[in-house]
C-alpha cells in the first residue's frame, strides 16, 4: 500500500483517549508493584538452600523472560493484523512494542548469564532454554534492523511485519528443535532450570515482580504508541494541501495537441 495511507488513516482518537485515560493508572501500578516486589524479593524472601543469595536474580530473570515471550507474541499478532486489515494502528503497536520486548529479552539473557556464572561456572552455556532465548533476541534485533533499513519508513514497517509473522510461526519450531538438539548432545549442565517445585515464599515475590513487569510493558508500549501517532499526525498536517490547488487541470482538446 502506498506510504501515505499510514498518515491518512492514522487517526485513532479512540486509542489516544484510552491511552491518556489508562496511563496514569499503569504508571502508579508500576511504581507500586516494583516497590513491593523488590522488597519481597530482596528482603522478605529466604535465600535458596542450594543457590544462596544468588537466587534473588531469579526475581528479575524469570519475569523478564516471561514478558519477553509475551511481547514477541504481541508484536507478531499486531503485525499479522496490520498485514490483514492494513490498519496503521497495528503497525504502530508492533513497532512500539518490539524494542521493549527486546529489552526484556536482553535482561533475561544478562541476568541469566550472571546467574549462570555462580551456578555453572560460566557466563554462557548452550543450555536449550538459554539458546532459544538467544535466538529470540536475534529475531527481535532482525525485526528492529529491518524496520530501520529503509529510507521509506512504510517500506520498513511492511517488511518488518512480514518478518515478525514468519518468526511467530517459527518460534515454536525453534524452541522444539533446540530442546531436542540439547538433549541429543547431552548437556553438561546439572542444574535444571525451573526445578520441580519452587517454594511459595519464593513464588509470591516472583509473581508480584512478573505482574509489575507486565504492567510496565503496557505502560511503555502505550507511551511509545502515543508519541508515534502524534508525530504521524504532525507530518500529516504538514502535507495536507487545499484540494483546489491539487486538482489537475484537464484540457481535452482534439486535433493536433
Amino acid at each position, binding site marked *: 500500500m*502506498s*506510504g501515505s495511507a499510514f498518515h491518512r488513516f492514522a487517526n485513532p482518537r479512540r486509542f489516544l483517549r484510552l491511552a491518556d485515560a489508562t496511563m496514569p493508572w499503569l504508571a502508579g501500578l508500576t511504581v507500586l508493584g516494583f516497590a513491593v516486589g523488590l522488597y519481597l524479593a530482596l528482603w522478605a524472601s529466604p535465600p535458596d538452600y542450594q543457590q544462596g543469595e544468588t537466587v534473588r536474580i531469579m526475581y528479575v530473570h524469570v519475569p523478564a523472560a516471561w514478558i519477553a515471550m509475551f511481547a514477541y507474541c504481541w508484536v507478531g499478532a499486531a503485525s499479522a493484523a496490520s*498485514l490483514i486489515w492494513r490498519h496503521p494502528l497495528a503497525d504502530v503497536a508492533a513497532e512500539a512494542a518490539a524494542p521493549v520486548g527486546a529489552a526484556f529479552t536482553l535482561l533475561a539473557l544478562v541476568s541469566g548469564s550472571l546467574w549462570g556464572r555462580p551456578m555453572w561456572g560460566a557466563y554462557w552455556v548452550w543450555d536449550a532454554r538459554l539458546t532459544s532465548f538467544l*535466538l529470540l533476541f*536475534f*529475531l527481535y*534485533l*532482525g525485526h528492529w*534492523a*529491518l524496520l530501520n*533499513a*529503509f529510507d*521509506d519508513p*512504510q*517500506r520498513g514497517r*511492511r*517488511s518488518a511485519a*512480514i*518478518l515478525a*509473522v*514468519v*518468526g511467530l*510461526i*517459527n518460534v515454536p*519450531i*525453534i524452541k*522444539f*528443535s*533446540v530442546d*531436542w*538438539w540439547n538433549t*541429543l548432545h547431552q548437556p553438561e549442565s546439572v542444574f535444571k532450570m525451573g526445578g520441580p517445585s519452587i517454594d511459595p515464599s519464593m513464588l509470591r515475590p516472583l509473581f508480584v515482580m512478573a505482574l509489575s513487569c507486565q504492567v510496565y510493558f503496557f505502560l511503555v508500549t502505550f507511551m511509545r504508541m502515543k508519541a508515534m501517532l502524534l508525530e504521524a499526525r504532525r507530518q500529516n498536517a504538514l502535507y495536507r494541501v487545499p484540494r483546489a490547488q491539487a486538482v489537475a487541470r484537464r484540457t481535452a482538446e482534439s486535433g493536433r495537441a
Partner: protein
Amino acid sequence: MSGFFALVRRDLRLGLRQGVDALVVVLFFLVAGALFPFAIGPEPERLSHLAGGIALTVAALAALLSLDRLYQTDYEDGSLDQLALSPLPLELLALAKALAHWLLTGLPLLIAAPILGLILRLPEAGYGPLLLSLALSTPILSLLGGLGAALVLGARRGGVLITFLILPLYVPVLVLGAAGLDAGLGVGGTDPWLVLGGLDIAALALTPWATAAALRGAQV
C-alpha cells in the same frame, strides 16, 4: 505456467553467464571447510565426528553469498516491474526464483560436499547421511533466502542484513540436519529426516506467499 520455467531458465542462464556466483559459492564452501583441519589440528577421529556438522554449517553460509542479488538486479534495472506485470502470480515468481537459486547454489554444494568430506576425513558411513541432510536442508535455505532477499529489497547493506534475518529462522533446519548425520551414524532413529522433509513441505507451501507479500511491499 510456461512463464515459470522461462524465468527459471533465464536466471540459470544469467547465473552461469556471469559464472561467478555459483563458483564463488562452491569455492567458499571448500575453502572454509578446509580451514577446520588446521583449526582443530588434524586428529582424524575428532575431525570425522565433526566433519558432517561443519559441512552442513558452511554450506548454509555459502548459500547466503549470492542471495542479495536474487531480486536486487531485477529491481534496479526495471525487470521486476515487468515480471510483476504478467499473468504469472507473484507467488509462482517467488517459487521460480528460489528454484533457480537452489539449482545455482544448493545443487553445486551437493556435488562439492563429497570433496569436503574427503578433506575433513568423513568416515565412509557418513557420506550418504551428509548428502541426504544437505539435499533436505538446502531447499529451505533457498526458500527462506528468497524471502529475506525480497524483504530487504531496496534496503542498505542487503547481504549482511539478509544473513542476519535468515539464520535464526534456519537453526531448526540445521539442527535436524545434524541430527540426521548422527542418526545415519547410528546414534539415534532416522526421524530427523522425516521432520526435515515436513519442514521442506511447510516452507514450500508458506514462504512463496510471504515473499510475494514482501515483493508487493517493494512497489512503493
